[in-house]
């Protein structure tokens, strides 16, 4: 892959439904791909497989289409890669010019300079005997913590020994991040699904450069049809840096008893299973260009997550 391709990863929703020249360029390729399997995937009705362009594409810089595949079966993927590379050399792309405005265009939603990013991992552990292979996967996401929530924390710590975490942060955690995303994209929890969300914090140390907080939580969610739910606990520590007002050194661990599946996460273990969560601060380049799963198309809803 290193030597033969330029590899790109992205959120299909941004390239399929966003507003950018990248979206226009990409979807023009998709609509002219003349691939019946891709057409079928794009045309499926809700409940029947999803109206999505997601998958692997091999494309020339000029937009020449060399192939699409949404199989994750390794032999098929390798065959797809080999054929796409061969076709590329048989039909090389034309030379193109790309405007500077397109090159500098914002490609995905990014956190602003005052927003803190925490990487969230979910895993099923221990793995039940005989469960589907997909349950061995790791769910990944980014949690954004906003500047006004940090200010609320600081203010609360000045007036009380123990205080609740900001409501919007709690809402974001229990609706979007404390969730079984191990086998794929989960259905976000609705406000009415939240049965418990007790998040309390306290200030534990103050230095010249930071205030360190501890927090602990109990939470529970259950879908209206009672087919999916969880109850869990989460605990951690984090610093608020005095100079920047940003969160650093965020570290948390959670454990829940979960059951059921979301629309696109079949293959869940039978009965109840243990879902564990880790949260750690992130400031690497990826964390700055990959928004939270439930941010896309719902920035305000993510920002002001209600309960």
């Amino acid at each position: 892959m290193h030597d033969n391709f330029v590899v790109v990863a992205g959120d299909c929703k941004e390239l399929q439904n966003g507003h950018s020249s990248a979206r226009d360029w990409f979807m023009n390729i998709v609509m002219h791909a003349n691939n019946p399997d891709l057409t079928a995937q794009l045309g499926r009705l809700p409940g029947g497989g999803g109206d999505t362009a997601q998958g692997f594409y091999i494309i020339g810089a000029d937009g020449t289409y060399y192939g699409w595949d949404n199989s994750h079966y390794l032999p098929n993927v390798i065959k797809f890669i080999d054929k796409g590379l061969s076709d590329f050399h048989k039909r090389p792309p034309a030379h193109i010019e790309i405007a500077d405005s397109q090159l500098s265009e914002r490609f995905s939603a990014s956190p602003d300079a005052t927003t803190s990013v925490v990487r969230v991992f979910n895993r099923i552990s221990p793995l039940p005997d005989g469960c589907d292979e997909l349950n061995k996967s790791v769910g990944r996401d980014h949690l954004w913590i906003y500047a006004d929530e940090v200010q609320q924390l600081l203010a609360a710590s000045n007036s009380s020994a123990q205080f609740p975490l900001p409501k919007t942060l709690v809402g974001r955690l229990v609706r979007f991040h404390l969730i079984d995303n191990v086998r794929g994209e989960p259905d976000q929890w609705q406000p009415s699904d939240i049965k418990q969300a007790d998040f309390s914090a306290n200030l534990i140390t103050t230095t010249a450069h930071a205030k360190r907080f501890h927090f602990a939580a109990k939470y529970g969610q259950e879908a209206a049809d009672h087919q999916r739910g969880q109850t869990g606990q989460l605990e951690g520590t984090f610093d608020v840096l005095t100079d920047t007002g940003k969160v650093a050194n965020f570290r948390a661990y959670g454990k829940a008893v979960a059951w059921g599946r979301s629309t696109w996460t079949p293959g869940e273990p039978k009965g109840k299973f243990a879902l564990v969560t880790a949260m750690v601060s992130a400031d690497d380049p990826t964390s700055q260009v990959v928004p939270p799963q439930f941010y896309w198309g719902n920035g305000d809803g993510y920002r002001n997550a209600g309960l």
Partner: protein
Amino acid sequence: MALLKHSIFLSLVATFVGAGVALAMTNFDTQIASVIPTPQEDAWLNIGWRTNLMQARLEAQRYNRPLFVWLMNGHPLGCT
């Protein structure tokens, strides 16, 4: 040593602030590490994924290579 200090610190915190919440911060670092992906699980991140499609087009042209584009509902690098 730093790890030991951290563990002691967290144990003290857990004792101090324990009112009303069942705390589980013993072996906290071990617990977190048990969830974070292993280097083997993260090996695919070392491929060198670009995240800007338009800049990747320019790079593909410069090196005479095709683009391999991986799109999922939920960014592959940050979501499931």
